């Protein structure tokens, strides 16, 4: 596997990171909390434009890994890069290169739709005009127009989800982290949402997603399954099923995690 040399990458930031094949690289990543090993010597790569599914039981170490990749937590040992930037040394720089959306959409319920957009745009240094321009550019996809003055609290869950996604991609992040993005949304909205994710990925954005819905896992280009701090499987859904002789990811998951 051609793997970018993390050391050189970070030292030569002028070398425009986006030119490389991998959006995320992780080598021997470990994180301990006291005696407890939350993430145990994990290695994997995510290609640019890929939808990478990050599966695992509660407490398997998914959240800890994502926190390290998004610069919220320092690794105990091991290295990793996100968009070519080192996760130990370039934590601030990484934050402007990623988008993040979590399960319980972290929107301000008491703000209007456009106020949320302006706020999150503002956090990334965007002025109102550029936020507006970006929103109308995204409107084909997100259909939020006409809702600008609605109170966020009054939106149906599906709309809230799209708004949260919009807030996460306003600043055109090359890498998008989605942490259980479809929790509590009806099946119709979920199907639409995965359509959106496919569109975003086909435009070249890398999507790193966690989910407990195993049917959603089937939409990912590649999957990793984490168990007790280790990655026990990483491949395309089709290859994983073939390898384990099973017809659904759900069955493979249960076999790997419970078996």
């Amino acid at each position, binding site marked *: 596997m051609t793997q970018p040399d993390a050391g050189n990458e970070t030292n030569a930031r002028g070398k425009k990171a986006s030119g490389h094949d991998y959006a995320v690289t992780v080598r021997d990543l470990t994180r301990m909390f006291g005696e407890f090993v939350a993430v145990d010597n994990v290695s994997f790569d995510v290609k640019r434009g890929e939808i990478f599914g990050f599966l695992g*039981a*509660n*407490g398997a170490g998914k959240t800890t890994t994502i926190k390290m990749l998004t610069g919220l937590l320092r690794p105990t040992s091991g290295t990793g890069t996100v968009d070519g930037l080192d996760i130990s040394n370039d934590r601030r720089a990484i934050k402007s290169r990623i988008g993040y959306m979590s399960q319980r959409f972290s929107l301000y319920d008491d703000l209007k739709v456009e106020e949320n957009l302006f706020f999150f745009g503002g956090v990334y240094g965007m002025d109102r005009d550029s936020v507006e321009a970006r929103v109308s550019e995204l409107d084909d996809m997100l259909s939020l127009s006409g809702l600008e003055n609605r109170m966020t609290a009054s939106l149906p869950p599906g709309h809230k989800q799209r708004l949260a996604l919009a807030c996460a991609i306003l600043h055109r992040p090359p890498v998008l982290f989605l942490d259980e993005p479809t929790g509590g949304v009806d*099946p119709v909205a979920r*199907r639409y949402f995965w*359509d959106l994710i496919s569109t975003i990925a*086909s435009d070249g954005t890398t999507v790193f997603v966690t989910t407990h819905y195993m049917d959603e896992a089937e939409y990912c280009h590649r999957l990793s399954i984490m168990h007790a701090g280790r990655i026990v499987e990483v491949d395309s859904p*089709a290859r994983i099923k073939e390898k384990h002789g099973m017809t659904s990811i759900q069955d493979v998951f249960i076999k790997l995690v419970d078996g």
Partner: protein
Amino acid sequence: MSIPFARVKELEKSYGKTVALASVSLDVGKGEMFGLIGPDGAGKTTLMRILSSLLDPDSGDCVVAGVSVSEDPAGIRRIIGYMPQRFSLYQDLTVGENLRFFADLFRVPRRERIKRTAMLLEFARLEPFVKRQAGRLSGGMKQKLALACALVHTPEFLILDEPTTGVDPVSRREFWSILKKLKETGVTILVSTPYMEEAELCDRVALMHKGRVLMTGVAKDIAQGFAGTVYSVACDDTVGLAVWLKGRLTPEQVRIVGTRVHVSLFGDTGRAIAGLEREAATAGFSIAMAEPVPAALEDAFVAMIAERERRHDAA
């Protein structure tokens, strides 16, 4: 079913202008495992809270085992065990302390309590964690503890509000196997879930959407009542084909199931699928075969919701 064990009669509840429940009626039989299926905002939680006497309806009533919620809320509280959606145990109390506390709240006699606690701990495979504080348990274990606490006074009617939301598939499966064992002991269970595959584990389900019950029945029957045909398409590029189909049709008609793409079609489905196959071939997809398969509950539910939304938009 002769006399229903729990009967919900024309419940209505609004919060200001938002209608949470619009005339909801349901019957749950004795010993039945009844599922409430629907997304956030469908009204599942409101219904369950009214049924547990935590909330007063604007109109309508519920009767459980002959006890009316509006007339005798205290009587209802003795019959039911309720597990709210949000984890609501004391995080700073240990597993054992939480169980003891809820047993005492229901005045479970000491000897009974000790027996029951031991049984529940074994049942939920929580014995090794008796002395651990609830806040330090994993998500799946927390849910099992919450269930044990709701069961500690041996309720006849168990109301579980989305007990498996956000829980991983393995813990979810374990949780449902516990529910199944419980059902065998004769407990009537009302459970809500956003996961379609869990609906199929219930005796009967009610599909809820925006404060209404769209349909009640056995999951399999509802699935069979699906008005169109579901075609299963095999293709070497499953995801690519699904994305293409979503663009060609509407996203709600397409989903990936394992290595195949399932497409919901309506009307003259034979001609439609033939046309799609030709177009897909032109677009560069090599499709092995498209064969009709039985619709799943999710297909039926999605079609129902989509239909309602279209009518709503039209109106």
